[in-house]
């Protein structure tokens, strides 16, 4: 089983008016392709910062990260963006749909940024897969919270599905995907997320407060004050090469 994501000795510090602040302290982890990892912790524990670094949205102060076999910490911003365009999808807590675009246009956006031609058709396919085939031309403000998050999920999978109807070998980062939804809608969204994850053999990293959601993932890291405090890694899940080291 190949490794999709690997981090070694990550440190991240920022400067503030009160002096330097350590956000992450010596984090290492490794995640095989097609598996799922949940990161939980209290607010301010550093989980979203870690998610951003692992996705290549920022660079750590120290340490190395490999994504899809490439060291993203050695890349400049443009190269990291190009890698994200190829194999990274995002689902955000507040959906982050562009209000001026319809559901279909929002889902098309990643494909259009890559310059693909059949973006509209593929977006429609993914929206149908998340059960929103009848809402293609609706704007975000015309959709409920649950529907908006389903559009965001369709966009995330469309983002990593390079010219095929599947997203094999891509990785999806989800930041509190149910944080803005009620329990019922949250449940539906999570079901959908895991269903698509399984169907497309995508690697999934999600940040959540919900214990129930974390338990559905293959691995679970708990964070506090920028450090990993505990890691639940079932033996039957990890295999020989995969590991999450603390």
């Amino acid at each position, binding site marked *: 089983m190949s490794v999709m994501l690997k981090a070694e000795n990550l440190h991240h510090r920022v400067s503030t008016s009160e002096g330097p602040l350590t956000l992450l302290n010596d984090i290492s982890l490794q995640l095989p392709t097609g598996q799922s990892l949940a990161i939980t912790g209290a607010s301010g524990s550093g989980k979203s910062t870690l998610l951003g670094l692992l996705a290549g949205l920022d660079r750590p102060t120290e340490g190395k990260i490999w994504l899809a076999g490439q060291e993203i910490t050695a890349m400049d911003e443009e190269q990291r*963006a190009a890698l*994200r365009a190829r194999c990274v999808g*995002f689902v955000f807590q507040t959906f982050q749909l*562009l209000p001026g*675009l319809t559901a279909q246009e929002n889902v098309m956006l990643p494909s259009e*940024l890559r*310059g693909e031609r059949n973006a509209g058709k593929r977006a429609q396919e993914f929206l149908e897969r998340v059960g929103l085939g009848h809402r293609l031309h609706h704007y975000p403000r015309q959709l409920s919270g649950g529907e908006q998050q389903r559009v965001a999920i369709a966009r995330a999978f469309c983002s990593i599905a390079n010219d095929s109807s599947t997203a094999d070998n891509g990785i999806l980062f989800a930041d509190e995907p149910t944080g803005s939804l009620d329990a019922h809608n949250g449940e539906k969204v999570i079901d959908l997320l895991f269903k698509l994850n399984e169907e497309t053999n995508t690697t999934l990293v999600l940040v959540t407060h919900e214990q129930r959601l974390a338990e559905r993932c293959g691995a679970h890291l708990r964070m506090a004050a920028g450090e990993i405090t505990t890691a639940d890694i079932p033996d039957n899940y990890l295999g020989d090469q995969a590991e999450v080291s603390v």
Partner: protein
Amino acid sequence: MLPLKLLGRDWRGGELALIATALVLAVSCVTAIAHFSDRLTRAMYIQSQSFLAAERVVQSSKVVPQEWLSKADELGLEQAQTTVFASMLSAGDEFQFASVKAVTDDYPLVGHLEMRGNASDEPRTVQQGPAPGEVWLEARLLPLMDLQIGDQLQLGDGDFAITGILDHEPDRGASLFSMGARLMMHQSDLAETNILQPGSRVTYRYLFSGDDAALNSYFNWLKPQLTEHQRVIDLEEGQPRVARTLDRAESFLFLAASLAVLLASVAVGLAARRYSLRHANYVAVMKSLGAGKNKILGIYIGQMTALALIATAIGLAIGSLIQSQAVNLLEGFFPVAPPPSGIQPLWVGLATGVACVIGFAMPPLFRLAQTDPMQTLRQDWSNPDKREWLGLIPGPLSMLLLIWWLSGSLAITLALLAGLGLLIAGAAVVNRLLVRGRLASLGGSWRIALGSLQRRAGFNTLLIAAFGTGLLAMLAMFYARTALIDEWQMQLPENAPNHFLVNIAPYELDGVKQKVEGKNLEGTEFYPMVRGRLIAVNGTPVNERDQKDGSIRRELNLSWTDTVPADNKIVAGEWWSEDLNEGVSVEVEVAARLGLSLGDVLRFSIGGLETEATITSLRTLDWNSMRPNFFMLFAPGSLDTFPATYIQSFYLPPEDKLFVNELVKNFPSVSIIELDKILENIRETIGQVAIAVESVLALMLVAGVLVLVAGVRASIAERLQEAAVIRTLGGRRQLLIRSLMIEFGLLGVAAGLLASIGTEATLAVLTQRVFDMPFQFHPGLWVIGPLAGALLVGTAGTLACRSAVSQPPLKVLRELA
């Protein structure tokens, strides 16, 4: 294609509408002003040239060499010729002195003649003078000589048929000494009259028109060959009053165009800033989806370029349409139909679009491309950037380059730069004072308003500066326009003297006085006048001092009076008193030219006799007063031994024009200089310029309002959200409306105060340096500025935010989410 696609989608979302509107308005305002000013300037120049009946004129007291005219032919210049002299006309037993003007077929080259075939006809416009053998007379000559159209009259040895009444000739004002009523004849008939003999006092005028290059080339060739008998007259020399009006109007129009550009740019800048702030999360999302910085830049610059091209094209079209409609509407006011404008205004409009976009719309986009994609996880769109000030450089810089190009004046450009810098610094200071307000002791609406001001302290500095610029431009233009128009009207008040009586012999003085006063005419006093030449200063002959000054070469009108004439002011020395009853008072500018000072002894030659006088005072005088003015005024009694005549000027209403005939009949030796037609022409030109200035002011107001709208909209989203939250928490509508009015009102007062300071400073520079007028303090401005700021900004802000209080708060919050 992606930028265009996104542009279309963004447009649907309404995000780009404001920036496009601001650009369209910017380009259309400036294009309209540039077109309008270009057409008016052309019209004014055509009309002004008609004062000369040509573009340039060579005036000579002798016939010029044929070679000069052949050279003009070679260069393809159009030519015409006039010959003006005074002569006696006769018809039967009636004799009358007249000013004769013989003209060639091509006269006038610019402008037109107006004549009537019958006394009862309406005057019609013609482009040619009388045919050979015919003459046209000024209307008042007919009753004076008991003549009718169709009768014959004699001029020298020639007999001529009267075929028309001459109502208007464009270059009537060419010589102030075109005394007597006009007779116009064909140049080819001159020889037949046998009037012109060697030594006759004749003014030959050679008229030239053509393209600028040919004219310049011709006059560069000609000027070195001119003798003291010849001079070249162009607009500046021929009609200095009109030339000065045009110069000032041009300065005003260019300045107004520059300020309109500045205002519109501020509007574009504010709209672009808001656009980039609202798009920060778009960019963060796109970046997290794999768009690199270059891709983002490509998308947004592509979008903005497409938007700018469309908006600029629409702006150019609207600007051209506005000006053509404006010219059509005002057509009746223009004495000369404004000719179509050239391509220059379109370039000005295009340059405005480019400068606005590059200077104001693009920098926020570069900053936008720097958006940190981590913001998608942090939920923070404020995107603080310590280098934000760098983005403020291209805007003012591009504006300065544009204004420099438009105004052609580095001084105006630097003054505006300094003004802008001071305004922003002032805005920062005023803003600091505003945010220092203590909240705890204030009532509800004041607390909300001041709290809101304190939260947006940084942006408010920008907003106060923007509102201040808008108000400053509007106030400065309003006051400058008022000052200009007032000054122009003061130059030529309605009842400015329009007739001069000269050569009044002492024995006729009482009779003339009686006649003029009997008619209840507004006139000046009667000044005695002797003709003399200045021959020495402190014993040194003047021809050894300065040969070039015309005041020395020609005979001067010397006068005396016991009171300082109206519009004269003593600037050095003393006026006559009991202790000081001899000497001469000299006009200050001629004194400066001749290097004269108090105490110098001047020697004059008057009719072959000589007299000396010591300079006892220096005077300024107003050449525009249309009153008799004198370089040299002597103490009463100093020139009693020399034969004098008298001069006076008075205003004669048009309906009393035949009074001139009465004077001529009763006092045949008195010469009457009629300036009424010239003054009427000048007044028309000034009126036309005033209309241009008023129209430009209206366009400036549009640009100013645009800045207000853009400024209010730039911060509206945050305010709407806050208002919705306060309402959700139970805040009443009235409380919110009051707090919005207070907040925007205070911003308006601050901006208005700064605008008042800026306007006063701007007017001080403008009036003294650009318009060449004295400085005047404007106390009203200090009230109007803050009041107008509070009213305009307060009303615009409250109206723009009214949806926050009129719509259900949930709806507002959902729309903003």
